[in-house]
């Protein structure tokens, strides 16, 4: 719309300026303006969003906007506050990134325009968020005050505030928030040993289903790619909890109980994260707390299938989109390494050292490459997942989370 109008205006200006020069001059002025307008009209339309993504610059409070096909940084958007532990979800068209900051800010950033289009300070201390299946609701999970707040994705208006409470009525920190089909969100309460499902179909009066006594201190959780199972990891005891959401009366079930076999766990310098694709085929690959192991569990029977010894305490255990590989990064002091597990053989087939303090990994939509952030090297490495060659190294200040717009089309991300 703007382009032709702009060209027309210039055409008119040209006519005015050339008016005294006679017919020929006037005509040539028209012709050139017309040619410009035509050239602009046939210029390719604005690019799509399918190969865009963001990298969090945690120290500077900014997002780098990246293109995963060109493997370039397109630009940056700053002024986003405290982005330590920031996470991002996307609108369905992949154009808007909703950024959840540690300081409780929820900011909407438009990727093509590279600017902030909305921002609310919604809590004192926040840890992440989720977007509903239909893209209309954005939910934030908060530590202070402990609870979940649900916002209209378009206006960022608060629709409901669901406090998370312990048995004694104190606030609990909320972890492991994920979207479920049908305007529902599921989350866990670290301080209350509970899992809650909030149905926000009527955002003004949410309905809550709560499971208590699920196990001590759930620290994070995930929803499987098919949306069927919610798996919460426990910090306070050996084991995880699974809820089959397709069950007529869903209930929590303990899995991998006692996986530590009573051994003294190592000190956990960084909590593992479960969100991300840890499910490869019928198997879920899960980080063992306080151990140098990845646990493999069968998602049909929920029996332990294997343990894969790895180079440190796993933080992210993420399956390549096809499930053929699982990539693992580690807590300090082993966080200069990344290991690749081949899922058919369940063996580590590669150890990479992409730069100091690896904090996150993200696969391109079809998984031919993985982007790895190395905080202390101020670098994001793009690695070919077939040859393990480094395809590009991007200069990004203290990078942490990497989020590509393909997440927009997936449950639980």
């Amino acid at each position, binding site marked *: 719309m703007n382009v032709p109008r702009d060209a027309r205006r210039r055409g008119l200006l040209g006519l005015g300026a050339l008016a005294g020069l006679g017919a020929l001059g006037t005509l040539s002025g028209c012709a050139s303006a017309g040619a410009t307008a035509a050239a602009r009209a046939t210029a390719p339309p604005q690019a799509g969003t399918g190969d865009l993504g963001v990298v969090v610059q*945690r*120290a500077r409070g900014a997002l780098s906007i990246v293109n995963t096909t060109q493997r370039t940084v397109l630009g940056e958007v700053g002024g986003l506050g*405290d982005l*330590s*532990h920031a996470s991002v979800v996307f609108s369905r068209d992949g154009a808007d990134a909703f950024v959840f900051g*540690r*300081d409780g800010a929820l900011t909407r950033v438009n990727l093509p325009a590279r600017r902030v289009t909305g921002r609310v300070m919604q809590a004192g*201390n926040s*840890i992440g968020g989720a977007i509903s299946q239909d893209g209309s609701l954005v939910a934030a999970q908060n*530590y*202070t005050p402990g609870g979940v707040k649900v916002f209209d994705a378009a206006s960022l208006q608060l629709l409901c505030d669901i406090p998370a409470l312990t048995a004694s009525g*104190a606030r609990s*920190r909320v972890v492991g928030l994920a979207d479920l089909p049908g305007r529902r969100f599921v989350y866990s309460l*670290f301080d209350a040993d509970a899992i809650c499902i909030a149905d926000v179909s009527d955002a003004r009066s949410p309905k809550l289903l709560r499971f208590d006594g699920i196990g001590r*201190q759930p*620290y994070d959780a995930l929803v499987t790619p098919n949306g069927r199972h919610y798996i919460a990891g426990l*910090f*306070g005891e050996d084991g995880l909890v699974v809820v089959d959401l397709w069950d007529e009366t869903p209930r929590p079930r303990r899995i991998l109980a006692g996986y530590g076999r009573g051994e003294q766990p190592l*000190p*956990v*310098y*960084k*909590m593992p994260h479960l969100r991300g694709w840890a499910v490869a085929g019928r198997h879920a690959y899960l980080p063992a707390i306080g151990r140098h192991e990845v646990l493999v569990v069968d998602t049909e029977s929920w029996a332990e299938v294997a343990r894969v010894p790895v180079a440190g305490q796993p933080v992210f255990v993420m399956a390549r989109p096809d499930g053929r590989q699982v990539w693992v990064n580690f807590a*300090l*002091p082993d966080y200069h390494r990344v290991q690749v597990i081949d899922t058919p053989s369940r063996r580590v087939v590669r150890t990479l050292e992409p730069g*100091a*303090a690896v904090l996150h990994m993200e696969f391109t939509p079809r998984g031919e490459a993985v982007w790895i952030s190395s*905080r*202390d*090297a*101020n670098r994001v490495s793009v690695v070919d997942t077939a040859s393990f060659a480094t395809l590009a190294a991007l200069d990004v*200040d*203290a990078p942490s989370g990497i989020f590509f717009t393909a997440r927009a089309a997936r449950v639980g991300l």
Partner: protein
Amino acid sequence: MRDVLLSMAAALAAGAACAQPAAPAAAAPAAPDAARQQQLVRMVRQDCGSCHGMRLTGGLGPALTREALADKPVGSMAATIFHGRPGTPMPGWRAMLSEAEARWIAERLVQGLPEASPERSVAR
């Protein structure tokens, strides 16, 4: 719950003090040198920051700002850093720190931790 944890930490601190004969002041381990101090500040902001926040405003772990720590004894904080706090996600950092370094960190936290030097100049 918090009272229980605090008293646990205090007990831990007392235990740590009892377990080791009080060293004469002259033999107290030296404070970390300037380069190590920089490393420690960076470690607190970046690595402790994964639970306590890069700006130490809290997260899964409590806030460690000067205001938040106003009434906390340095000795028990140093013991918590070194030995961890059982029953919570706070690990003991003894594998990465000396006791003197844990104490140095506790003292800095109470005074308000300095900003880390710019990331870029450290890494490049």
